[in-house]
């Protein structure tokens, strides 16, 4: 009997390994197929990937903590992104340039992130069991509030001095805000070029610092509590953990990190698309994390980096490959959007079916045990 279960387990492990890594494998195949077709040189690709790694990794890492607390993919990371943008808009209006400007933007964004995170966490506690759809709608709702603030209150209530970022009508922020004074200042802080590949050392250092923080955080009492809450809310509550509070903290941390991540992202891009930069960011980050082999209930730092590489490789290569196959570059453009959504869809479906399978397996085991009891 004992032997039987262990054999079952190892078989299940291989199966679950294949199931878990099916998305990365699929992506490796897509990339292997598309790279030769695109005709892009390896050095160009490596350069692009390194840049995009520096740009996106921090943002994606911000998703890890809510997953640990069992709250699923935090579509509400957009909230943090908006806070970061508000910080950057104000910092660039006050003409604080370079690294100090970024730090100031981060300092402004943190309290906004905390407020938004508290609000989001409270709401998510009221909607247990459907956190993801709620956080998704939440991002739309706060987007409305963000537009209200940036489009109507900035310049009329919140003083904005410089007309270069104000709309001609006297209030509201322009569609794009240039960050020329901060552009890639963090990336170029410690210049390093290896064989023509420019490496943003300082950005990577910040990302490494965050990785260390996450690893450390997992070991703290709070981190352990979060994992317990993620495993089973009722058991955690019985063990004396304040479930609601822990969940709110997870969302607040994620929102703060997303805000700082957005500042790093935008300093690399060099300008803010005031009304659209944040709207897509959640989707792309979540897709990248899932491509790296994460699932709704389990994600590691390794998933983040593998995900950035594979997802952005596809992103760079697909339009060119699509153009080479069909003669129409728009097809590749639509293809990569489709793939991003399809990956999220598949990951969500796998998560839900796994959950159901586990439930039925558990009840089967219970039944079996009961039968054995009766036989005895």
């Amino acid at each position, binding site marked *: 009997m004992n032997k039987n279960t262990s054999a079952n387990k190892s078989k299940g492990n291989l199966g679950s390994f294949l199931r878990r890594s099916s998305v990365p494998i699929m992506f490796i195949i897509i990339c292997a197929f598309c790279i030769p077709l695109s005709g892009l040189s390896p050095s160009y690709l490596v350069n692009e990937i390194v840049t995009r790694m520096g740009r996106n990794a921090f943002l994606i890492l911000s998703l890890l903590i809510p997953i640990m607390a069992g709250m699923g993919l935090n579509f509400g990371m957009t909230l943090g992104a908006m806070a970061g943008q508000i910080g950057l808009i104000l910092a660039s209006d006050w003409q604080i340039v370079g690294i100090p400007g970024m730090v100031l933007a981060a300092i402004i964004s943190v309290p906004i992130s905390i407020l938004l995170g508290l609000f989001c966490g409270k*709401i998510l506690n*009221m*909607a247990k*069991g*459907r956190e*993801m*759809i*709620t956080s*998704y*709608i*939440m991002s*739309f*709702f706060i*987007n*409305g*509030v963000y*537009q*209200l603030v940036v*489009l*109507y209150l900035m310049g009329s209530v919140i003083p904005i001095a410089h007309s270069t970022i104000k709309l001609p009508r006297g209030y509201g922020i322009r569609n794009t805000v240039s960050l020329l004074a901060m552009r890639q200042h963090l990336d170029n802080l410690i210049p390093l070029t290896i064989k023509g590949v420019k490496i943003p050392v300082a950005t990577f250092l910040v990302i490494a610092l965050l990785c260390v923080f996450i690893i450390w955080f997992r070991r703290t009492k709070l981190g352990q509590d979060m994992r317990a809450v993620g495993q089973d809310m009722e058991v955690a509550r019985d063990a004396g953990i304040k479930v609601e509070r822990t969940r709110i903290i997870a969302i607040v941390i994620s929102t703060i990190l997303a805000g700082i991540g957005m500042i790093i992202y935008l300093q690399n891009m060099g300008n803010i698309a005031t009304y659209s930069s944040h709207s897509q960011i959640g989707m792309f980050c979540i897709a990248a994390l899932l491509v790296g082999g994460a699932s709704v209930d389990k994600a590691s730092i390794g998933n983040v980096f593998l995900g950035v590489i594979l997802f952005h490789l596809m992103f760079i290569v697909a339009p060119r490959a699509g153009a080479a196959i*069909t003669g*129409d570059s*728009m*097809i590749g453009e*639509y*293809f990569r*959007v*489709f793939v991003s*959504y*399809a990956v*999220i*869809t598949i990951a*969500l*479906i796998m*998560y*839900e*079916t796994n*959950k*159901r399978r586990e439930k039925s397996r558990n009840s089967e085991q219970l039944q079996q045990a009961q039968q054995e009891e009766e036989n005895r």
Partner: protein
Amino acid sequence: MNTDKKEKGRIGQFIESFGLPRLIITAFLLLLLILAPFVGADLPTQITNIIARFSWNGILVLAMVPMVHSGCGLNFGLPLGIISGLLGATLSIEFGFTGGLSFVMAILIATPFALVLGSGYGWLLNKIKGGEMMIATYVGFSSVSFMCMMWLVLPYKSPNMVWGLSGKGLRTTISLEGYYIDTLARFLRIRIGNLEIPTGTILFFALLAFLMWAFLHTKTGTAMTAVGSNPTFAKAAGINVDKIRLLSVVMSTWLAAVGILVYEQGFGFVQLYMAPFYMALPAVSAILIGGATVNKATIMNVIIGTILYQGIVTMTPTVMNNMVHMDMSEVIRIIASQGMILYALTRKTEGAK
């Protein structure tokens, strides 16, 4: 003292049952209607607009009802049905049908697509009970972005639809002039001064709404409600839960297909590519504003909700613009409609799960 408490309880109960956000939205719309004449907006024109937009959107909102009844939650996957409708519309034009006939043919052609896609979608939702809403959202997104590629690749030839220069690939918006623009609205149209009522469209909506109401009172319809309110009980009563849920999803998808065709005949254009992307959200918030919850919805919720939602969408820009010369309508619309969805999601649902 005692009666005072009772009185308070009654008011509280009323607010509880009607919902505070709904109360605010209704009051807001009434305020807008009262203000309209004072700020120089023509009231009959405004009411005409509200009625017209109600007639365009009614069926899309009605499409929410079956899935809510069977316990599948709000159908965020509405774009899938919309795509079936768009396939019907474009194919009908491609095959050379014109005038009113093109509308009938569009519905006929869209039907098999809706049935097939709806069945697949329903089968999927049966596999993932409990997580329907999030997956529905992403099924909608994936299918819209997949069709973006298809609109470019599929061999459409009609010169009224493809890009003029390259002769292939559909345009982003296709005019329905000469096809089924206003087909329904023209039927028995009533005109009193500036007030105009598209009787045909409203009758068509009324017909479908009546059929839905009648269906919900048949044996299968009651079974559907039973499945939604208590799946375990329904199973014990010998109802095939999965089959009923599948049926509800197919119905919802087909209604969405017809709904978008009716929308187009009023709007006058077929919108392709990314246009259907966010079309589920207005329909979802409309039915919620009308008083539906995640697991309960009636035809009355659809009618009231669509009038309130479209009323706010049409009234805010004009009144706001005339009053403060500041067009905040878009922001107000976003905050009100998404806030409504959030409110509904945070309500405790009894029975379900």
